[in-house]
């Protein structure tokens, strides 16, 4: 998968950016330098990894608190 397509996929599944921010980024995608695409992409990869880790912890914590 090329990095532009990958960035679109990661933006679609990002919780961090608002929908308007996503739209703004996508509208400028063709004007971004490779370095900028890589920077955003690496950030979104990090966000997804940490978001999944946090979601697992939150889910476990919620189940624990609701069961007591």
């Amino acid at each position: 998968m090329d990095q532009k397509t990958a960035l679109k996929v990661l933006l679609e599944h990002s919780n961090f950016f608002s929908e308007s921010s996503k739209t703004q980024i996508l509208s400028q995608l063709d004007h971004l330098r490779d370095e900028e695409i890589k920077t955003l992409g690496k950030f979104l990869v990090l966000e997804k990894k940490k978001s999944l880790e946090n979601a697992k912890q939150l889910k476990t914590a919620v189940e624990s608190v609701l069961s007591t």
Partner: protein
Amino acid sequence: MIFNESSETTQDNSKQEVKEKNPKQDRAQYLTSGEKLRATLNDPATKEAFFATLRTLVNIGISIIDLVPGIGELPSWVADAIKVTKEAKKKNFANRMKGNNEKNPDDFWQKIDPTPDVPVWIALGSEVGEAVSGTAFPSHAVESTAQFAGYDLGRITAGLKRLKEIWGEQEGNEVIKEIGQKANNELTDYQNNQIQINSAMQAFA
């Protein structure tokens, strides 16, 4: 006369502080959202857990504000909390720009900075378009500076338990269920799109 009025006011304030520090289950429903938040923050034993939980919620997505429908008073303070965390990001960013990188454990704003080392343009998501098109776009590697804080399960659980105590059994459980649903949505979305998301992540490995 003035002294008496002042004295009564002081006593009233004192009573109010005691009430907010020790919210009882049977009166939790009578607290306003602001009082509930203050009660949480006034409790030294749980303040840290609350901050950890709040930052985790913020880290899992600013869009947690989407929880608005059907959960009573939560939206107003979540919205406020997000505004506050954004303000914290601005203040801490400004401090770092002045060359002041010292961590002060007593600094209120540093405590609620959701992602202390994430560039400010990321925290202020709505302004990212401007940042991307301007000269402020960071060219340095994000992975070396971005920090999505992870918190241990014990602290998150303690924070949720305290949230339930302060918000009351019924409303607290509803809030916690909504939080759980949000976390579950994230995990389900990943499971349903795992191949595509993994390929996208691999492109930036």
